């Protein structure tokens, strides 16, 4: 079963993603509220895929992506962003993000993105 680490600073968004991914048969490996936690949890949990919010306190999604990629270059990270953050996502893609979803997203889009990224 595909294990997902959800990273977002709002509980609202985490709940939303969790419910969507649950319903689609994914296993939620863990949740992180900021980039720093995400890096820690990634190393601990080694999830199959990470959904990574961009704008977060303590450490941004972009910095977390860099750090995760430095410990695991094959890490599969899907950036989760809102319109207006395209440039950052472009940078994230150059740094190795394997997918992105744009808020407000629809469940099927999210599921498709994650499935494609993990090759399920």
């Amino acid at each position, binding site marked *: 079963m595909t294990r997902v680490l959800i990273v977002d*600073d709002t509980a609202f968004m985490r709940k939303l993603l969790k419910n969507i991914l*649950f319903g689609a048969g994914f296993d939620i*490996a863990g949740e992180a509220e900021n980039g720093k936690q995400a890096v820690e949890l990634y190393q601990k949990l080694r999830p199959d895929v990470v959904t990574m919010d961009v704008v977060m306190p303590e450490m941004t999604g972009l910095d977390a992506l860099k750090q995760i990629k430095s410990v695991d270059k094959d890490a599969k990270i899907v950036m989760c962003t809102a319109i207006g953050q395209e440039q950052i996502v*472009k940078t994230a893609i150059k740094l190795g993000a394997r997918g992105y979803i744009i808020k407000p997203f629809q469940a099927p889009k999210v599921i*498709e993105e994650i*499935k494609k990224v993990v090759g399920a």
Partner: protein
Amino acid sequence: MAAYKDDFLQELYECLDIFNQSFVDLENGDSAAINEIFRVAHTIKGMAGFLRYSSLENLCHSMEEVLSGIKNGDIEINSELIDIMLSTVDRITDMVKQIENEDNDKVKIEDLLEAFDKYKKVKDVSRGNLCIQKQAKNNIQSLEVTSPKSSKDNFRSDPEPHCEQQTKNIGDEKTYNLILNVSLSADCIAKDLRASLIIESLRDICQVLKISPDEDEMDSSFNGQFAVFLSGDGDKVEDLMDRISEIEKFNIIYNEKAENPNSVLAESQTNTLEQNSKEFSDQELQLDEVQVLEENLDELPDQDLKPQKIPETGNSKNDSSIPYSKSVNSKKMSSETKRQETIRVSTSNLDNIMNLVGELVINKGRLLQISQQYNINELKEATGTLDKSISSLQDEVMRTRMVKIEKVFSKFPRMIRDLSRKLDKNIDFEIEGQDTELDRTILDEISDPLVHLVRNAVDHGIESSQEREKTEKGEIGHIKLSARREKNNVIIEIEDDGKGLDLELLKKKALEKGLLSPSEIENLTDDEVRMLIFASGFSTKEKVTEISGRGVGMDAVKSAVEKLGGKVRVHSKMGEYTRVKIDLPPTVAIIRSLLIEVGSEIYAIPISNVVKALSVGKDDYKLVKGTPLLYINNKLIPVVELKEIFNIECKKLDKEIAIIVERENEEVGLIVDSIIDQQEIVIKPLTTIFSNSKGFSGVTILGDGRVIPILDVSSLIRDDIDD
């Protein structure tokens, strides 16, 4: 989506707190605060988008754009802009209330959008200049190499010689063996991003030699069709394309002459390629159409290009069918619960749990009593263990109810900012001990009194800038709000370095208002005079201001604190400082109490009210003007006979117990027959019929089922002594 509304609102309230704090930080010169404000605006926008609160979304989007301009240095921040943004925060607050009550965000935002637009235009102008400069620079570059970059049009339909040259260059450097044509699905929101993702992913597995249109030209208006010239393994490219979403279709064209280093693209081929690209983009690629494409290529004068494989991908229709199954869901739920480190619980759930723990504590008391009564060892052992478990459970539940005081403190910086502007005072505000935790109920109850005290410090405490300039203290006033844990209690202090309390003025006012007689005022200690500010109907400010009201507040502050089982004190030195100290118990639902007996009746007195308890006899009394007063350690203490107050008929004992309690810095002795026990009791509020009865703050149920009134010491002795 309705299921998410509560989470949304809770999150919004947290966002508003951060907003208020960050704006004050920003004004205090902390430029990093802009990032935090940006993040919060972005977060709200994201959530509002999901729940279709479009006004809220638009407003936050506008604000975010301006903030982004500030971050990039395109827009200069000034106090007008901060005011607009603060008004936005207020408007968002209105919207949150509207969403909470009416489930819509219909609040006027046009004025704010307009205000933001004005700044955005400034930004666009500066951006526009930037674009022109950039373009000019490109032109120079083009001139230098005498070969302008191929554009989308060049590649598609305008086979000018420069295009040929460009393509040849590719061939010279490294021969491509694959051309990947991609068409993104129509509903793909950011096509340029998706294209970037595809290109970057391709770079991981093969060499990308050329992209058409050029990657730099892909922007938000990009139509989603592009071709990539590659050198690598076609199968790998195909695998990769299957792992990227939002691709309507793609095809891979194999260049057989790739092995030949001299292989170059002839103009005619480029032409056909474009034709193919056009065909590809113009129609749905059906199998028979693939045939047509092949025929087109066959007609080429030079048979360099042949499509060996034209795989077709649909936009993964299967994936959108999500297997929703209840049994599957519930199974996964359990595995998820294990992994979660935190969950959100509604406060009503916590209240229910607290009530149930209260019931357990009562029953625990009952069991302990029974086990003592029957003296069975096994039962004693069992109840002993149960006692420990219940105490631990109680501690844990209490802990879940604890909230950081930051939740209340965080609204003050913004408040002080607004007030000091309004009153034209320059104030430096300091907060300490935000991490101190308090029971949620206490925190809710203490919030308003604290607002009042802080307002008072700004309004009555700190002098005007002009007045301050005349003193050594300097123009800037200081207010410090702090919280800390002392033993089991939580201490909150509000201190200002303002004019302090004028004792003579306080006495004068108390006389004028008829609160005390001249002789009573003469007998007051300085501390007692200061405490006059908490008396009902007391206000020394000449002018009643809208800020701190009409002097009803301080009285309310005191009763609110006392209702929570706490104490309030004021310390001050004229011309130097005023410090209000609030001492609160950590929780209100379960308190430690003395159980006392008067005649055949039992009452509970909260330990927090008790200074000490003494055994007293006839010799300990002195008659002063016909009134018996306790004379202990050379001090006269007035007494309240509970027997008399509650009309309990029984004879006066030779040895009684005086429970010494405090009343406005003055000690009062409550005379009772005996102390039965000291134990934890669960407070049950008085219901409607009894809610007006004076002298009681609630009742509790003892282990044997007896209902015991809890004495509200301050109101009880106030009424009696005043009488």
